[in-house]
């Protein structure tokens, strides 16, 4: 015999103002199985919860129905209260009479009537609730960090610091990411390499950290605590274990006309290369698209081979193949970072026409001591010193059209102030103009930094936007723009134009999100589990977000989030096992046909089949193929329950009979 307790919450006046809570409690007290039906001011309060606990003990309740706010709000609260009083937490049901009743209806009579029906549905359901016990599943004590920029490096270092193994997978030949390409950092103007490269070295030397450079994650299976990732180590035609990074091969390579990706194509490098002097791992890589030997198709042919001849340790291996590594992980951190957008669609800025119109990241390389000009700022077209430079803000950011991105890229205001300042510092004869819409400088010491650019370095900040950039025959560039404050249109004869290009998530992010079954927004940024309260977790358990893959960020923010993601991952890895959601599917073997329909629709691969012996009439037996669900893998979506024609598959907590009972109660 069921003994059900019903508790109706006033939620102050939130419910009580439009729903006659006394009438609801009264009406529900007559439902079958209900032994106690009360109302109370605030059910979620300590006193309200005690009401439930006391009733469970006093009446020996077998089910509890709370008519209150959304179960998304306080289901857990009441489940915990029930558990504390010795009732299985899954014997609690919530009737949502606030969000889905009192808040949307005005008429007390009909709202009360609806609240009673919702209460009856919950009672009908709780009659069929069964006690559920959450299972446990073990946690693999190893983390995977996808992306080896500053975010990935910081996350890996923090996790390793806590004593767990970490693998970094980086698609480029070296870790370091975008920060390695940056010259100086705001707001302190210290050199990026000086602060980044020690961290890169630390990561490479940490015995808990394994770096898979020139690698990709090609498949991820499993679930929180128990992921299995396949890492594809792309062939770089150099044996990483033998290469000493001496660079002899790069010097002898006859194919020196390969655009240098590290310098954004502003100069050339060899077909065999080490991206930059402080690369980690410092190992050469052969670009098969340009290598004279590999391009031939048949490596046995007697072509070139100079790098192999120059290598004293025999590290060059033209026969190398892609290698696949499979590894188990308890936690995965995504740190895939960002890229500047392509500017093909912005003809008005003449980026594709004129080499002296550059992006801000290109300017970083042009100014960097390890860059194409050895640190002297020269125009890419004629290698002369620019005397007038125009910076354009918000190129592709804050765009409500198909060309750009709707969001603010966040970092451009600050790095433009940095660029302007560095140029004025080093070349006081160069005039610098910055066209801005708004200067956004929230951040510690950020506005002071911007003000310094204006007040101390005399950078001309003009509120307005550049409308048109026209390269002229004399090599200068006409910049036509509006000055909104003086209400005039300007023409500036510039030597160089720098575009503060919008940033977007890396292209690898979307396929990765599919692989990880994590969510992304329309801009391909990973979606955090909660915009305010869970900013470094993805909605998929066990997957954490680090750095600009979640949204535009500067270096300090990236590092902060990287460490936060690491601490979340560590919090998971220290556990020996995690509690599973008990609302999972299960198969009734007596009815199962073994037809595989359920397996085909399961997004988690939670269903497997086995042959089992069943008794048949006349003391005979028969072997039948039947499905079984791995409760640790199942997430409880219920797709299988509908695919199953015989109804053998059912879902705990949302069983066929429970939902039917709700339908019946509502339609009564």
């Amino acid at each position, binding site marked *: 015999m069921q003994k059900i307790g019903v508790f109706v919450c006033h939620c102050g006046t939130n419910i009580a103002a439009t729903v006659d809570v006394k009438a609801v409690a009264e009406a529900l007290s007559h439902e079958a199985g209900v032994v106690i039906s009360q109302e109370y001011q605030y059910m979620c309060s300590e006193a309200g919860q005690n009401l439930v606990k006391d009733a469970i003990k006093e009446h020996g309740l077998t089910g509890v129905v709370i008519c209150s706010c959304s179960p998304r709000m306080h289901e857990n609260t009441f489940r915990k209260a029930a558990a504390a009083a010795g009732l299985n937490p899954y014997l609690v049901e919530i009737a949502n009479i606030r969000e889905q009743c009192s808040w949307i209806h005005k008429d007390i009579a009909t709202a009360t009537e609806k609240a009673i029906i919702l209460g009856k549905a919950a009672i009908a359901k709780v009659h069929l609730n069964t006690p559920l016990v959450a299972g446990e599943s073990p946690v693999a004590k190893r983390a995977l960090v996808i992306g080896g920029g500053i975010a990935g490096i910081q996350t890996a270092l923090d996790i390793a610091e806590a004593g767990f193994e970490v693998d970094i997978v980086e698609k480029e030949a070296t870790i370091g990411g975008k920060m390695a390409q940056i010259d100086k950092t705001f707001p302190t103007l210290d050199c990026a390499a000086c602060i980044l490269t020690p961290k890169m070295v630390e990561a490479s030397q940490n015995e808990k950290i394994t770096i898979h450079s020139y690698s990709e994650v090609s498949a991820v299976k499993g679930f929180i605590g128990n992921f299995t990732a396949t890492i594809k180590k792309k062939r770089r035609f150099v044996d990483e274990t033998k290469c000493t990074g001496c660079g002899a091969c790069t010097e002898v390579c006859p194919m020196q006309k390969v655009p240098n990706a590290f310098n954004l194509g502003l100069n050339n490098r060899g077909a065999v290369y080490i991206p930059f002097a402080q690369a980690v791992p410092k190992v050469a890589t052969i670009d098969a698209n340009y290598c004279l030997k590999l391009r031939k198709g048949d490596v046995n042919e007697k072509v070139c081979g100079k790098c192999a001849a120059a290598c004293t340790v025999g590290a060059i291996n033209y026969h190398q193949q892609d290698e696949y590594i499979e590894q188990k992980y308890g936690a995965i951190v995504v740190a895939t970072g960002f890229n500047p957008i392509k500017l093909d669609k912005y003809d008005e800025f003449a980026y594709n026409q004129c080499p002296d119109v550059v992006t801000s990241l290109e300017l970083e390389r042009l100014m960097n001591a390890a860059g194409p000009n050895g640190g002297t700022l020269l125009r890419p077209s004629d290698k002369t010193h620019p005397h007038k430079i125009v910076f354009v803000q918000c190129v592709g950011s804050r765009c409500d059209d198909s060309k750009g991105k709707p969001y603010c890229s966040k970092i451009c205001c600050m790095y433009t102030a940095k660029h302007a300042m560095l140029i004025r510092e080093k070349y006081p004869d160069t005039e610098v103009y910055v066209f801005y819409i708004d200067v956004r400088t929230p951040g510690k010491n950020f506005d002071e930094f911007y003000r310094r650019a204006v007040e101390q370095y005399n950078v001309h900040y003009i509120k307005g936007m550049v409308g048109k950039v026209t390269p002229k025959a004399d090599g200068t560039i006409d910049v036509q723009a509006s000055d909104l404050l003086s209400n005039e249109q300007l023409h500036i004869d510039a030597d160089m134009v720098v575009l503060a290009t919008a940033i977007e998530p890396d292209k690898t992010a979307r396929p990765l999100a599919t692989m990880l079954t994590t969510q992304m927004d329309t801009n391909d940024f990973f979606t955090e589990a909660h915009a305010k309260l869970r900013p470094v977790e993805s909605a998929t358990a066990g997957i954490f977000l680090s750095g600009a893959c979640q949204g535009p960020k500067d270096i300090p923010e990236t590092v902060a989030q990287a460490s936060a993601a690491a601490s979340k991952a560590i919090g998971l890895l220290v556990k020996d096992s995690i509690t599973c959601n008990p609302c999972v599917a299960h198969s009734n073997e007596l009815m199962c046909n073994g037809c595989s329909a359920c397996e085909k629709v399961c997004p988690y691969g939670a269903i497997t089949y086995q042959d089992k012996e069943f008794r048949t009439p006349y003391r005979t037996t*028969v072997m039948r193929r039947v499905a079984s669900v791995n409760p640790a893998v199942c997430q409880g979506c219920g797709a299988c329950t509908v695919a199953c024609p015989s109804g053998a598959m059912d879902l705990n907590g949302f069983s066929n009979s429970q939902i039917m009972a709700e339908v019946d109660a509502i339609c009564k």
Partner: protein
Amino acid sequence: MQEAMISKAKQLLADGTVTRVIGWKKGEFAYDITPAIFESSEEIDRDFVYDDFTSTNVSKYLVKESKKEGKILAFLKPCDTYSLNQLTKEHRVDRDNIYVVGIPSDGKLDIEKIKAKGITGITGVERDGETLKISTVYGDETMSVADVMSNKCISCKSKKHVTYDELIGEDGEVITSDRFDMVEKLENMTSEERYNFWRGELSKCIRCNACRNVCPACTCENCVFNNPDSGVENKAAADSFEENMFHIIRAFHVAGRCTDCGECSRVCPQNIPLHLLNRKFIKDINSLYGEYQAGADTTTKAPLNDYTTEDCEASIVHERGVE
């Protein structure tokens, strides 16, 4: 044909390829052919029948039979092979334990159509091209074969065997048929007319479950309508809702799995055109998700267990056709 099949069966039994044969034997009347299992040459000589009334698709019997000890020989018409393939795909039969001999089929006769012409006391038929000679206790009658051909054979979709170990005779081709004509006709009626049509048809249902029992897709260990936990358990339809419910759910459960063998309508004692429900699903699947023939192979995902991100929305139902 019968002789060729008998000698094939006896040969396969003799050389040990199979231990049993599933075929047919005569029932009470000449047109009343039922499936039967034969374990020896003697039994085959005595009872094995294959004639123009032998329609029953035996593939469903193989769900149980193929799980038994020893290989079984099954003679399958082209349409039956689709059913077997579908069962193989769903792991319902042990294909390795079945020896399939494909037999050609030029259409089966519908006894009800013959009886409807007022002919009774039938003792046998003989087919001579397009003419059918019927011997009855009252004398002989002749008529055109086409007039009394089974409906499922009139709209035959394929003469090709999609699975077999051996063939008797030549294999045919997949043929185009006008099998969706009636579905289309209904689609072009008004909602009210369709409702009246189906009310008229479905209200005849006596819930004998013959459609379910003959259907080679309905092979559930335990039908959802027999399951007390399913919430839809019922033995006999008490009113129009339950008639609807049973047939909608049954059609939905076999959607994407139904090979359109037409057995449901053939066996319906009330002559309800049940195959139209299945064909409606097949037609929708073909037009919305691409041509799909259940049982054509054993690997393709069933349309309801599959999806593309570009699938049409359910609102397409509201947008097309007659209101």
